[in-house]
């Protein structure tokens, strides 16, 4: 009886939802309200209102600043969950860490990685700092830094890698994305504006455009550094787990 009632209820709910879905505007139709109102509104006013040439950056950091702040908080929470389950790598364990694979990675690969990683890091900085005027931004740049750390750690091992990016630096910078957002938001409040509007109406009205650009870049740098450190810490935590598993 109970099951029949719940089945009926679910069926009714499914029918209702399917009916609503059937009445939604067709996907990708140029006549949709999103295509006729929302997109032209952004494209026409974004550069003037957000002072960023890249409209996408203007949307995710300015119009939808709260949303992006939530996203970086989710990334930070993901790291917290990974560390809660796996734990951070212990310093002693890293010092005693030896590469257990019997084959040392080849000289060619080591030389190439040592040669390429600085260029990859340079490219990531370019991606982060040009995020407001060209494709790119903090998320992409941070992922590139994290990727270069994965390559470096795979070839040179955890000990070398964690000597380059010590635990205390990572611990300090993991929250950089969230902190950057809150810092810029709080500065906006102090400057007489609203949270995350990137404008300080009470202070130096003439400086407004360049101020907005610099604050946007500050948030981008925070997202980039924070994202890179989160990826690196998750990688190190997972390696430590594997090392203990092979040792036992």
């Amino acid at each position, binding site marked *: 009886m109970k099951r029949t009632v719940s089945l009926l209820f679910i069926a009714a709910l499914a029918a209702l939802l399917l009916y609503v879905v059937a009445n939604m505007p067709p996907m990708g139709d140029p006549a949709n309200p999103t295509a006729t109102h929302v997109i032209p509104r952004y494209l026409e006013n974004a550069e003037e209102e957000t002072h960023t040439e890249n409209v996408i950056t203007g949307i995710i950091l300015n119009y939808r600043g709260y949303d992006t702040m939530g996203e970086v908080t989710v990334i930070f929470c993901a790291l917290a969950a990974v560390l809660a389950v796996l734990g951070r790598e212990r310093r002693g364990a890293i010092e005693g860490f030896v590469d257990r694979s019997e084959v040392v990675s080849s000289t*060619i*690969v080591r030389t190439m990685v040592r040669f390429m990683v600085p260029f990859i890091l340079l490219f990531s900085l370019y991606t982060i700092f040009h995020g407001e005027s060209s494709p790119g931004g903090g998320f992409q740049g941070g992922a590139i830094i994290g990727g270069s750390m994965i390559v470096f750690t795979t070839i040179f091992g955890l000990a070398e890698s964690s000597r380059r990016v010590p635990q205390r630096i990572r611990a300090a910078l993991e929250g950089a994305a969230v902190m950057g957002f809150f810092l810029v938001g709080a500065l906006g409040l102090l400057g007489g504006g609203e949270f995350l509007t990137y404008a300080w109406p009470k202070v130096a009205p003439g400086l407004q455009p360049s101020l907005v650009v610099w604050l946007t870049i500050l948030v981008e740098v925070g997202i980039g550094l924070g994202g890179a450190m989160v990826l690196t810490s998750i990688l190190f935590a997972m390696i430590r787990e594997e090392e203990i598993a092979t040792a036992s």
Partner: protein
Amino acid sequence: MTAKEIVAGIFCCIGTFFFILGTTGLLRMPDIFSRLHPSTKCDTLGACSVIVGMAVYSGWSWDLLKLIFIACFLLLSSATCGHAIGRSALRRDIPYWRRQDEGAKSGDGA
């Protein structure tokens, strides 16, 4: 259509042809060592031809410098990847492919 566009188009077509060749080889070859051959060599050649085509199209500009950088990094990293995959396959004693009916006769290879 100017001469520049035609030359650029020819180079891009050559590159695409080698891409198709490399992909076919990757799908059709029997084992990892023979798959490395089309995937690394033809990939590099294909991508470099496309880059040469784009360089011809862009002419003397900053884009040309960027394209040269891309070609350099592509050549370096592609060769290194091929080397790393081949070496680790060799170290892991992944068996070579041999034709079934000749397997008994040619046991001296490798």
